């Protein structure tokens, strides 16, 4: 009963939110049509409307408050870095280990943005994760990587301005429990591998893949985010700190203490997410220590031997006497959903989730896998910055749950955020 009520209030909230958006949408359209004779910058209306509707605590102390376009414009050309006054905070979205994320709006062009405010400790200065995130993201421009618009720098805080993306894969999966539509899984997976292929081509590892870090736009565009743990990989691979990936998505070689990991690290994570999307539950879930996690993996893949994984016995944590003997299982017997889909689905999962890192398929090759054959062919030749949804015929299918309760659905056909 309580659950039901909660769901109802949630749905109501969502509706309310939508209506507000819609109202605003109409308003700005109206104003647009009024001013068609003189070319006014669109953001101007956006701001006026927004300012009336949203209560902001900061506006009063804001020196640039309601100043003119010229001043904003001067800011844009005059300074390399943004100023806090160019963005408005709207609401808090979440809190991470070293940062708080707010939804915001840009005063320069009216785009919605995500403001990641990084707390700075006076003794230690800028957190190294922030430095890494900024320096890597600055060089990355791809439709499946979250876009870093701007960096705002004040004495006591550092704010990264990202493009605003509505939800993430973890939320999307909670909204649609019991596994996603197989067609949507294919589209998400293609985009995930496309993003990975791009960063791996630039010798960058993400190192922290998990559904929470994969943002999903209302159209279904998937974007890699949170590069706080990512790093660029130099040619003679160094040893990195082995405390990297969240345990559930961590590959067996890293769990065994290997530190010379490479791109195959992210591929394992992608494989886990693939299973999770299909199955509706994490592939290797719910454990707190490394050995339990390994045992979960061996229960599916079998305990590795020197024959099927040369070099495994030299890894620091490899202690065969600690593991229960396990025989390799068929993936379709472990994850039932695979059995209901064509064999190529299981085959891709198997190639992504190989115990030995050198046997794992590369992101580049995985994109060529038969599994993606049913997607329109022009996808393969897309330019980096073009979204897959620009290809005709690519769109998300309704998830099973949406069909039963259409009110809760994020409708892709509705141009809610068209102008943001």
């Amino acid at each position, binding site marked *: 009963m309580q659950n039901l009520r909660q769901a109802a209030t949630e749905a109501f909230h969502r509706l309310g939110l939508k209506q507000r958006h819609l109202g605003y949408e109409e308003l700005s359209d109206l104003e647009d049509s009024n001013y068609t004779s003189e070319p006014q910058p669109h953001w101007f209306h956006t701001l006026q409307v927004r300012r009336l509707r949203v209560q902001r605590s900061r506006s009063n102390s804001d020196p640039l408050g309601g100043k003119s376009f010229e001043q904003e414009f001067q800011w844009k050309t005059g300074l*390399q*870095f943004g100023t806090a006054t160019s963005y408005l905070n709207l609401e808090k979205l979440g809190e991470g280990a070293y940062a708080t994320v707010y939804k915001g709006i840009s005063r320069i062009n009216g785009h919605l943005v995500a403001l990641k405010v990084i707390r700075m400790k*006076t*003794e*230690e*200065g*800028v957190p*190294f994760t922030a*430095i*890494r995130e*900024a*320096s*890597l993201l*600055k*060089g990355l421009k791809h439709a499946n990587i979250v876009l870093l618009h701007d*960096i705002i*720098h004040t*004495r006591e805080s*550092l704010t990264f301005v990202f493009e605003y993306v509505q939800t993430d894969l973890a939320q999307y999966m909670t909204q649609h429990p019991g596994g996603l539509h197989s067609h949507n899984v294919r589209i998400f997976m293609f985009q995930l591998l496309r993003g990975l292929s791009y960063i791996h081509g630039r010798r960058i590892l993400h190192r922290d893949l998990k559904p929470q870090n994969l943002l999903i736009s209302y159209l279904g565009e998937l974007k890699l985010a949170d590069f706080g743990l990512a*790093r*660029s990989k*130099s*040619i*003679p691979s*160094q040893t*990195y*700190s082995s405390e990297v990936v969240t345990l559930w998505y961590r590959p067996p070689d890293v769990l065994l203490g290997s530190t010379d990991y490479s791109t195959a690290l992210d591929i394992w994570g992608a494989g886990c997410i693939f299973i999770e999307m299909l199955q509706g539950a994490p592939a290797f879930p719910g454990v707190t220590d490394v050995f339990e996690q390994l045992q979960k993996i061996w229960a599916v893949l079998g305990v590795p031997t020197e024959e099927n994984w040369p070099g495994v016995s030299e890894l620091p944590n490899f202690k065969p006497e600690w593991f229960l003997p396990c025989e390799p299982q068929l993936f379709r017997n472990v994850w039932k959903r695979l059995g209901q889909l064509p064999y190529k689905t299981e085959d891709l999962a198997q190639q992504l989730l190989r115990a030995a890192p050198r046997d794992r398929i590369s992101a580049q090759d995985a994109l060529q896998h038969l599994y993606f054959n049913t997607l329109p062919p022009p996808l393969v030749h897309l330019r980096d910055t073009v979204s897959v949804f620009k290809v005709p015929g690519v769109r998300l299918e309704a998830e099973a749950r949406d069909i039963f309760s259409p009110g809760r659905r994020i409708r892709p056909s509705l141009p809610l955020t068209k102008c943001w």
Partner: protein
Amino acid sequence: MHSVPVATACALYHRFYQSASLRVYEPYLVAMSAIYLAGKVEEQHLRTRDIINVCHRYFHVDSEPLELDSQFWELRDSVVQCELLVLRQLNFQVSIQHPHKYLLHYLLSLKALLNRHAWSRTPICETAWALLKDSYHGPLCVEHPPQHLAVAVLHLALRTYGVELPLGSVEWWQVFCEDITKSIIESIVFKLLQLYDMEAKCT
């Protein structure tokens, strides 16, 4: 401190002064911040306290270590603030490609090319490596791409010991790096030698 963070710190420092003036910003403070920042970038974390103490020791060899007084805390705060300044000046572009890995690859392929005696008679490896390290005393590492630097130090090392490479249809450096020319190598070598002259004048 490993050599990669050291190299990164030097490169950060030189890059900073490419766009900023030596007169405006105190070079020793910038240097300390560059070291601190390099530690973060290359995942070898250093404590500000250690950096300050070591630097203090270096400038005042005979004096006592700094007292933990307000002056120390102020110094530490300014290191942290200066780190922000460096980041800002460099536009957050702090991942640096070092020439060392290229040099290593070039040396390995040279070793396969030359016969073993010629290789063991002359300390090509050590010389080239030392030259490369010394090149970080000057802004060479930010003025030239890493491949060019690696080729140039290798060229100088080979010439110093009079080692001849078998002649092929193209010059050896073109095999390693397509876009380098004789004149680029010469200019890098010239700048490097100038650095040594400057060093000699100072002492």
